[in-house]
């Protein structure tokens, strides 16, 4: 006879694996999430691209002027930074609603809970891909060619997706129980946007050690640097691997402990 803890661990692992195997379901539901928002509009999901493009153009011109740097140098930096930050922050901001918004499913049928995690990660990846159009437009406009090093963005993106999915899983579970968490996370994310070097260049910081205090800086760097044609520092990678390990341990513990309670809480 297995102990209750062992059984919960086994059920949690089974949930993660069998949820992934239901990919035809979550791929379809993830697409629908995006289509639903923009249904019957002419531009569809490209509204995201359009509004993001305008934001990058306006803020790029303004902040290049404010910081007294050339637009040529600043705007691509800002563009990639905002794209990556948008992906990261959407995991945090929407993570709280992960299970509460799926209540009608959770209360009607038993599906692996990880299905909802994969679904949300997938739809965030689609949005990121739409926004990537702006990046290519910026490359063409400024005549930049990052070279083969840009491919390093792919493992970086995977690391962000894994960490984002895990964070949204934890936030989703905890927010199902404590409904104040999404509001709290919302205000934290707004502050993080300003303290992370996205609108300003990290070199401008007088005390460079402050950068290491912000894990999000390193998460952004592992995708931003390759897309701008540079190799991220070893320090970035080590930090992100460390964050990932911590995230796996923490989210795993939360999921194993509270998975069976989610249906009661939503």
């Amino acid at each position, binding site marked *: 006879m297995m102990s209750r803890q062992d059984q919960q661990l086994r059920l949690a692992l089974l949930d993660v694996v069998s949820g992934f195997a239901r990919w035809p379901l979550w791929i*379809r*539901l993830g697409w*629908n999430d995006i289509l639903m928002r923009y249904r019957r509009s002419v531009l569809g999901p490209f509204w995201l691209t359009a509004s993001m493009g305008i934001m990058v153009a306006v803020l790029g011109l303004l902040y290049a002027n404010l910081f007294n740097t050339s637009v040529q140098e600043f705007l691509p930096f800002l563009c990639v930074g905002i794209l990556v930050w948008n992906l990261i922050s959407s995991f945090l901001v929407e993570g709280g609603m992960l299970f509460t918004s799926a209540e009608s*499913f959770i*209360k009607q*049928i*038993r*599906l692996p809970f990880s299905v909802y995690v994969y679904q949300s990660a997938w739809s965030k990846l689609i949005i990121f891909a739409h926004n990537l159009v702006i990046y290519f437009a910026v490359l063409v406009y400024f005549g930049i060619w990052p070279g083969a090093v840009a491919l390093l963005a792919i493992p970086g993106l995977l690391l962000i997706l894994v960490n984002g999915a895990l964070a949204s899983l934890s936030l989703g579970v905890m927010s199902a129980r404590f409904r104040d968490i999404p509001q709290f996370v919302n205000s934290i994310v707004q502050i993080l946007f300003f303290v992370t070097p996205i609108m300003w260049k990290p070199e401008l910081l007088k005390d460079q050690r402050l950068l290491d205090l912000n894990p999000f800086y390193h998460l952004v760097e592992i995708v931003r640097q390759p897309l701008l044609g540079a190799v991220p520092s070893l320090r970035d990678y080590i930090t992100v691997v460390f964050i990932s390990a911590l995230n796996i341990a923490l989210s795993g513990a939360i999921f194993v402990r509270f998975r069976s309670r989610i249906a009661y809480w939503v």
Partner: protein
Amino acid sequence: MSVAGAELVLEDVSVRFPIYSGSSQSLKKRLLFQGSGGRLGRDVHHRIVIEALRNVSLSFQAGDRVALIGANGAGKSTLLRVMAGIYEPLLGTVTSRGRISPMLELGLGIDNELSGYDNIRIRGLILGLNTREIEEKMGDIAEFTELGDYLDIPVRTYSSGMLTRLTFAISTCFTPEILLLDEWIMAGDAAFILKAQRRLESFIEKTSIVVLASHDSGVCRRWCTKGVWLERGEVAAQGDVDRILDAYAGKTRG
């Protein structure tokens, strides 16, 4: 999977719902007057909990047609959800063999902006079928709904009767081994109800174990062989459906 091997066993299952919101004091006062509902209690953290199910032990084998009866709030829907694996009990165990299909609400996963065909595909995926199996059933579902070309346009344009036909057809096209039904959700014109009943009958015949929660004793007698009488979250009696229904009728009449 062999239909003959289907099985559903609950051993000493208890389910409690903690109440987190609102003032526990006033809530307690309010709930004390709901005589038929689950018992109120306190857990180890001194939180107020509703004991929705207490020490429920049931065992169903292939061929069993079970009627769940009891007053509103006796725990019928909760018990169906426990059987479906939606609520994992804190105490006790639930073991099942065979694909379980809960039909608790007809509208599960219905997306108003999608076409009828797309809704059928999504429902199939939710129930765990692959794309090929779904396409095979498509003709049968389309024919039953009698919706014709309407299946190509978004569901939001449907009348409520049309929507019922679609959801009903989707819900009953994939035969599970264990079927869990909550109440008798039916609307639409008389001709449809007749047709729906025929479909449901053949659906139930093909299913190995059926558990049905209903207030309608006629429906229970017609389709079920066994009865389980729930009272305030506990099994008050179980056995032959006629005996249980008679006992229940005697009790409720006073």
